[in-house]
């Protein structure tokens, strides 16, 4: 069993999560070229080694996270929230005080 350190819920079994995809894929703008969309949707580097990948904590907080994992050994090197805004919100020093 892989154990994933969810940034929101703590260390959980990977059976609570569902694997998304290679997180390094950058999707083009909606009016991007057909070639760019083809590459983003269909082509994969298929890394053998350390890759960044998305997972969703489906049976937990349902948040998307980015996991840095070795695809040959399954070692997990780091975990962070997928959306930078949420990462900031989690860190109180970065939080903006609401107007009084």
């Amino acid at each position: 069993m892989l154990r994933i350190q969810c940034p929101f819920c703590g260390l959980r079994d990977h059976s609570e999560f569902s694997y998304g995809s290679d997180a390094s894929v950058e999707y083009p703008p909606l009016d991007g070229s057909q070639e760019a969309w083809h590459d983003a949707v269909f082509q994969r580097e298929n890394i053998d080694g350390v890759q960044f990948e998305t997972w969703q904590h489906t049976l937990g907080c349902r948040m998307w996270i980015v996991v840095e994992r070795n695809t040959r050994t399954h070692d997990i090197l780091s975990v962070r929230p997928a959306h930078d805004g949420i990462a900031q919100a989690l860190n109180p020093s970065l939080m903006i005080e609401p107007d009084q």
Partner: protein
Amino acid sequence: MKPYSAWKVFVNGMNGQKGWTRAWRDPEPKKEYDVIIVGAGLHGLATAYYLAKNHGVTNIAVVEKGWLGGGNGGRNTTIVRSNYMMPGNREFYEHSLKLWENLSHDLNYNVMFSQRAHVSLLHSPAARDAAARRYNTMRLTGTDGELWDLPTLRRNIPHLNFDADARFPITGAMVQPRAGTARHDAVAWGYARGADQYGVDILQNREVIAVHRDSGKITGVETTRGLIKAKKVGFAVAGNTSRLWRMTDLGQLPIESHKLQAFVSEPLKPLLDHVVVFGVGGAHFYISQSDKGGMVFGGDLDWYKSYAQRGNLPIVQDVAECATSVLPCLGRVRLLRHWSGVMDMSMDGSAFICKTPISNLYLNAGWNYGGFKASPASGWFFADLIANDRPDPVIQNFTLDRFSRGINIDERGAGPDPKLHG
């Protein structure tokens, strides 16, 4: 090498089994070959065999990083069927099944092909309608299949869970009687011996570490034990295709590597005469009984990308739950072994047998779960492609550009998510 026969089995039985010779050579490589096939799995060995037999090309090397048949050829559940519906797939797999039917005679090697029928259980009227559509399409395009009602299924496999209180009560089955199983190692050994008899050099323990190019063409492959030159090169290394492809600098492929587990139980007395498949409500399970008596079964992928040839526990639990829900009599059977193989999962669940941007490089990849049954036809059409430098009409859409052309062969209708194609 002399052909095997019942007479030779008798003679060698009388003289202490001393008359057998080795089934294939362990040759030193030549400096150059007409064709190098990378990967001595079932597909690579079959390709070499049919190149020699069908096309008279015998100056061939099959280069393998480990031992022959040691990858997915030895890591499958040995199911052979041709119940495909999409154009291209159905003709391809039916051709493969026809080759299976005569493979033992053709290779003079008993691959123990057993046409015991492939029985996919149905659990709802919608599933029956979909099965009828699939099997009607198959019957109209040259393959056979049957729909079994509940009494027929009960008569054939009486110990399934027919309980009306089951989570998914069984209502019938779609059946391909000509489908079945084969002995996976024997297929690898039979093709290796057959290819070797035509003079093909099988070079084991030589991993390809680089591909040499000169003015747009491949000139040879660098292996861990030296350079071997070639006029044409074919890749047949499903599971590790992307790794090898990177050596060619041709960019990315529509493939992800995922791992699939399989299981075998302790040997039992004869219990199950068919291949039984259970797939409903997210469950996916297939089981047959080997000639040694072990129950051989498997289920879904591990659901995350991996190159590790070892599986993870949640799927073990899933598969065990499926087993006991379909065949409750297996509840106390102990697991003997379980293993995992690395699959080339493609973006539409179908394979690639095609030319590449390099004129003398050919690709055979993307077999998803289905590589075992495909191996004879895969070798047949890949050999034809390499020998004649043009695809047979059957494999004309098994190309890398089918996604950009909008002609995906998505048998399951799952969309471009490799882990969903089973």
